[in-house]
């Protein structure tokens, strides 16, 4: 699973969540916008967190050195 595939998964799950929020609790344009904002912000935050950690491990500059017991 590369960077793009997982990003796509995030994108899809964000899209599905947005759709669900639109379908399940459709309560007028203002509330829908509010729900969409929440879903998108949450998705972006989670994706950012994942992406940063993933990218940081992509090409390691230091290797794990096990502590000798």
């Amino acid at each position, binding site marked *: 699973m590369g960077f793009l595939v997982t990003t796509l998964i995030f994108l899809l799950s964000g899209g599905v969540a947005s759709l669900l929020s639109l379908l399940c609790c459709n309560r007028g344009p203002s509330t829908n916008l509010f729900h969409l904002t*929440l879903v998108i912000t949450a998705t972006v935050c989670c994706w950012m*967190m994942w992406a940063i950690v993933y990218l940081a491990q992509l090409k390691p500059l230091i290797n794990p050195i096990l502590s000798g017991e």
Partner: protein
Amino acid sequence: MQIIIVFTKPSYYSAYTLHPMKIKRCGEMSRKLRFLKEQMLKAAISTSSTQLSGTSLDIDDLEIKLGELEVELTEGNANNEKLQRTYNELVEYNVVLQKAGECFYSAQRSATEQQREMSADQPDDSSLESPLLQQEMLTDPSKQVKLGSLSGLVPKEKAMAFERILFRATRGNMLLRQEPVDETVTDPLSGEKVNKNAFVIFYSGDRAKSKIVKICDAFGANRYPFPEDTGKQLQTIQEVSGKISELKATIEIGLAQRDSILKNISSEFDHWNNMVKKEKAIYHTLNMLSLDVTKKCLVAEGWSPVFATSQIEDALLRATVDSKSQVGSIFQVLNTQESPPTYFQTNKFTSAFQEIVDAYGIAKYQEANPGVFTIVTFPFLFAIMFGDWGHGICLLVATLYLIIREKKLASQKLDDIMDMMFGGRYVILMMSLFSIYTGLIYNEFFSVPFELFAKSAYVCRDPSCGDATTEGLIKARPTYPFGVDPVWHGSRSELPFLNSLKMKLSILIGVAQMNLGIFMSYFNAKFFRNAINIWYQFIPQLIFLNSLFGYLSLLIIIKWCMGSKADLYHVMIYMFLSPTDDLGENQLFPGQKLVQLVLLLLALVSVPWMLIPKPFLLKRQHDQRHQGQQYTMLEATDESVTELEEQHEDHNEEFEFGEVFVHQLIHTIEFVLGAVSNTASYLRLWALSLAHSELSSVFYEKVLVLSWGYNNIIILIIGAVIFLFATIGVLLVMETLSAFLHALRLHWVEFQNKFYEGDGYKFAPFAFASIIEEED
């Protein structure tokens, strides 16, 4: 929008001046209610709200009833007090009669005996008992002295002083006999229980008597007449004890009657209290209304949410029908210059987040509400500092308990800390969910890593794995797909790796959130059609922040993707110090030097761009409006005088150019310095998350694993208990609090200062529910 509601005057408000009277009456009624409550507290009767009153009282009836009750109770209390006092006096009298009797007789007998048989030999014991009197008798035997006596009770602690003073005042010409009373007696004056001594004083002469009486009064010694002859004495004792039992019965009946009255009140008390509170609030509000010119109707000006317009109209219509008024109320939208209050509709989920924002400042009317993003970003920033999915699950369980028992807990009265937790239960829910997510990313479950998503990417260099502890492992598989590779945990290079990762993570997240804040200022400016703010504030701010820290973020990502060993500190520092120098081995991409030069220039240009044009443009705008409005003033002749005056005041507002310029200068300096300090401030994410993971791994390894190593069940249990308490006390309570506070700060300062003015005021609608709640 501002609305005006015109009420027709209801018939029962005969005059406008009635309202202060009504309010006074309500105040009086609530005073009476407080009095009743006090009485109930004294009688230890609690208010029971179980009975919903079947009898509906009118407020006027209630007033009469309260008055009656108050009079009844005060009279009862006064009577009771009087009776109690008499009762106490009688009890004291009784004690005196009993106690003083003994010493009185022994003393008097000896004294009279002495008088009679002066020449004869005296018995030894009597001489011991009355040495002073005896002395007097002996020195002056021929003189016939009439002996008087006083008896009473004196407080025990004053007895010594009492005796001394008496002795000095009469120069020893008296005899005092004291006898401690075994049980405490109630003082009739103060009503307190005190230990007392019964005393009998024998004296001679009227002058001595008046002196002694004065001294008795000064010492609070109650005097009681003591009949000298035995027959009378017996009679008195009988009389007194008869009176005592009589009084006791009377007092008990009085108390029982009072209790029954109070009990009746207690079932209705809450109902009455609410009624009075409501009435008072209604008249307070009515007092804010004004009479119109014809003095026939009341005018109410106020704010209402646009969506509630139809509800208000309905309510007014219903009121008209209910009060059988011939003329309906008129509901009219009013145009005004005043800035309206801010009202965000919240539900139980969003209200706590909105409170976080409101604690910083209430949004200006129609300003973008940071609360929307706060719902996600606040728990997210918290979770970055609190990344451990084991701890996250603990928090989740705790908050789910609160949420499931929501209805039950909401009706209870909770103590301060519980109340705070309960109020923020949905905030904690979001925090725990994000903690579980970031915990999975950090790969920590009570600081223990799991290979949940794939096998670790790292393997030994050779099959023997000999140099795993010296040279380290080597990456052979694809990167661990989700979160931190479990192999890092416990390795010697864990800290350098995690430090670098979390520091960069903090900067990236921080720059992203600050950019979000700047974009919010764009939307604010767009909504208020403020082109100046877009062109001379939003754009230079965006350029400044991103040409420095946006570029740094970009470098971080490029470095990761390329696996370059370039030193980013060096790059950033020399971008300022010597931008024309060659980057050498620190170059990450071709043409980097040119890009850096351009970015530096942009950043330098954006500072005066923020500073200089805006004040001048504002001045021009003001001048233009000033001219324009002078014309409209002449046109607006049909408007009321007050409105003209108001507008006039607006016109006279001088444009203080210096002030505006200084304001802009401060704003610019704040932003430029803030860009640096705010970015640095986001490093707290790194510090706190590192502290959290280190603490939890210390607790795990030094307590749980160590106690496991002893192979002893008792040590293991002790270790587990210590681990449990350390985890709950330090990690789940203290760390949660500190991470919460830091997330709060990042939102209030670093995020909101980019766009949020927060100088509005809250919409405070009139509601009975809040009135009843607030005073409890």
